[in-house]
């Protein structure tokens, strides 16, 4: 696969390879299966510290493989998804029940995702212990998911999220599609990550086609990606203020988010979607002088806003020490993005595996060690500041020029694309079929990773902190469920 170094492994070589990778400080990032010519093939995409190139492990022709969940717990969910959707078996899996679909293989049409994917709830038969199922339709305008709390008084003993009510089978929507146009599908996997998803998808197709993107298009891609980060983090701060009942803080955060979205619309014609296509941009755009000025005004308002948040004790008191995610759990469970960086994991795909126009830009990767809700807030605050700097830099260096080249991957080509979205790493693995159309597209979204880490911070916490803790993670459900 272009973008990776491929290694073909036999099933019994998998676990030793995983152990070696772990010892070297690396991690299997995600895994998926597909069946070219009817022969099933499992791919594991791994990263090694200080190496820009990813590794891709290929295991061909086996329907039963040893589970890697004991080495990399975060891979457990990918294996369960393959059991559900591809009908594979993973031996010695620690959680061998369905994740995405009710029945694996048969009766897919009538399958009810998540409905019976209920992992075993602990049997707690004691006086005063209460069980509260909440969802899948929740209060307020929120995405659907069900949570079960087992608690005594205010104290949460056990917490079990049931996700995948929103599983839409998005990966199959790519199959058979034209690689140039399927970018509109990638934008609709998770709307608040439209640019991140579109960019990772385009990078994957472009690697498969081995085409060079014009400088202007690469620069505009960075601009759009950073503007997406800005409005997402502004929303995050507004929503977090909502959970700490800081009413004016909530209003101000959401007002700034609205202003950022309106800038997107003026620039691209859409408040949320992107202008990307494999080969560059779908059309050129003109940021002119107004965008730089508008971003600077927004930055000034943002700075005042953050100062106020940092001086609001009632807000800070609810965040500091809330929802502690240790570095070990963050690493083992595959946490990504601001959540990982707030727990001391210094990783940013923009810096570690540069793409688009990031190589050479003044990137800062704010990292904190505390792992609490406050650290997660501070990472995002610092990232917004850094994004404003990146946007202004791009506007300075933007030269006129072409924005699109022909980009058509050859039959049977494959490529890997990645981006550091507002919530963390997005990966797309793209396989082109013999007819030149897309044969298989795997989408790895940041929330799929962070939803695994999140429950670890809820156990042994208290009910009043739950909403704050959940908001501090900034999770989406559409991205996770796909």
């Amino acid at each position, binding site marked *: 696969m272009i973008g990776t170094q491929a290694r073909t492994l036999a099933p019994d070589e998998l676990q030793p390879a995983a152990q070696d990778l772990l010892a070297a400080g690396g991690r299997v990032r995600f895994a998926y299966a597909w069946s070219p010519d009817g022969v099933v093939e499992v791919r594991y995409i791994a990263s090694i510290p200080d190496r820009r190139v990813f590794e891709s492990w290929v295991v061909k022709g086996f329907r039963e493989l040893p589970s890697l969940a004991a080495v990399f717990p975060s891979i457990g969910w990918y294996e369960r998804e393959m059991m559900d959707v591809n009908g594979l078996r993973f031996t010695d899996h620690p959680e061998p029940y369905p994740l995405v679909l009710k029945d694996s293989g048969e009766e897919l049409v009538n399958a009810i995702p998540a409905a019976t994917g209920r992992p075993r709830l602990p049997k707690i038969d004691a006086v005063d212990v209460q069980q509260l199922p909440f969802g899948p339709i929740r209060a307020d305008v929120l995405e*659907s998911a069900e949570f079960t709390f087992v608690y005594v008084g205010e104290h949460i003993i056990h917490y079990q999220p049931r996700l995948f009510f929103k599983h839409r089978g998005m990966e199959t929507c790519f199959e058979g599609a034209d690689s140039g*146009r399927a970018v509109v599908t990638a934008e609709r996997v998770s709307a608040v990550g439209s640019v991140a998803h579109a960019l990772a998808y385009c990078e994957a197709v472009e690697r498969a086609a081995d085409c060079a993107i014009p400088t202007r298009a690469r620069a505009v891609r960075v601009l759009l990606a950073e503007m997406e980060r800005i409005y997402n983090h502004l929303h995050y701060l507004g929503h977090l203020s909502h959970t700490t009942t800081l009413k004016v803080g909530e209003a101000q955060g959401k007002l700034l988010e609205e202003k950022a979205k309106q800038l997107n619309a003026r620039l691209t014609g859409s408040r*949320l979607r992107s202008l990307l296509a494999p080969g560059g941009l779908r059309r050129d755009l003109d940021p002119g002088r107004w965008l730089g000025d508008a971003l600077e005004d927004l930055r000034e308002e943002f700075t005042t806003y953050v100062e106020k948040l940092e001086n609001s004790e009632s807000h800070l008191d609810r965040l500091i020490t809330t929802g502690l995610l240790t570095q070990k759990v963050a690493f083992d469970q595959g946490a990504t993005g601001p959540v990982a960086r707030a727990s001391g994991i210094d990783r940013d795909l923009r810096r570690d595996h540069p793409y688009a126009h990031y190589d050479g830009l003044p990137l800062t990767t704010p990292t904190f060690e505390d792992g609490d809700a406050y650290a997660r807030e501070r990472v995002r605050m610092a990232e917004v500041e850094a994004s404003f700097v990146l946007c202004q830099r791009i506007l300075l260096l933007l030269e006129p020029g072409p924005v699109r080249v022909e980009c058509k991957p050859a039959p049977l080509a494959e490529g890997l694309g990645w981006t550091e979205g507002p919530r963390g790493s997005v990966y797309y693995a793209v396989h082109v079929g013999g007819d030149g159309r897309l044969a298989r597209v795997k989408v790895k979204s940041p929330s799929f990773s962070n939803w695994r880490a999140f429950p670890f911070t809820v156990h042994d916490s208290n009910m009043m902190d739950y909403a704050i803790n959940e908001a501090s993670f900034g999770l989406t459900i559409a991205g996770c469920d796909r």
Partner: protein
Amino acid sequence: MALWTLFGLASGKATTAWPRAGGDSGQDGVLGMPRYNPAACREGCAECAAVCPTHAIELLEGGVAVDYGRCVVCQLCTEACPANAMTPSEDWAFGVRDRQDLLWSETGASSPAQAASDRKAFRRSLHIRHVDAGSCNGCESELQALNNPFYNLHRLGMFFTASPRFADLLLVTGPVTHAMREPLKAAYEAMAEPRWVMAVGTCAVSGGISAGNYASGTGLEGVLPVDLYLPGCPPNPAAIMEALLMFLDRAPQRVRGGRIHG
């Protein structure tokens, strides 16, 4: 706290006067449904229909049939059309009472939109229960924006409520995934009559990109009776506000036969 109170007071009013005359809708530059101009359409050309990801455009003798209820506003047809028969527009306010009005028609005629007398009591106070039936979170992002200071939906007497029992209108997003079908129906059953249903976003109207695959349905058709359709991907907050006002007979329905009039 005093800090925020003073800051709030000093900041003044952020809310737009829209939809009152002279108010800013906040949608400067937002592209809406592509406009179909059959006069420019070339015989035998099938470019737009070939690129449409949701079959919103289908070939007909001497032109195409356009169903805006299926349009995800991706603009691919406007790029593919060699004759400017499909052009970008700012027609984003596409709320209708009757599904038929989302189909482009030569005459632009529709079943006459009647003021619904059973809604009269709700004109100044509408309570909405939102259900996400499998969206991509784009519609949620824009629905959440309705309560930001710029749009401030409360000023129109419209409120999101936590319980379907207190709700007059069930506002549904997403293509209705198989797993959300039963919870959605249960929410509807829990509502007191009179009750209405609004499909927000192209997914809820017709299924969108993932329509009818192994995990997704094709929107609300055949699941719940729909009183108000608003396609868009996602519809922006101003479009949602306009559709709600239209539903309450506080604004006219402007879309007829797949076109905005007036």
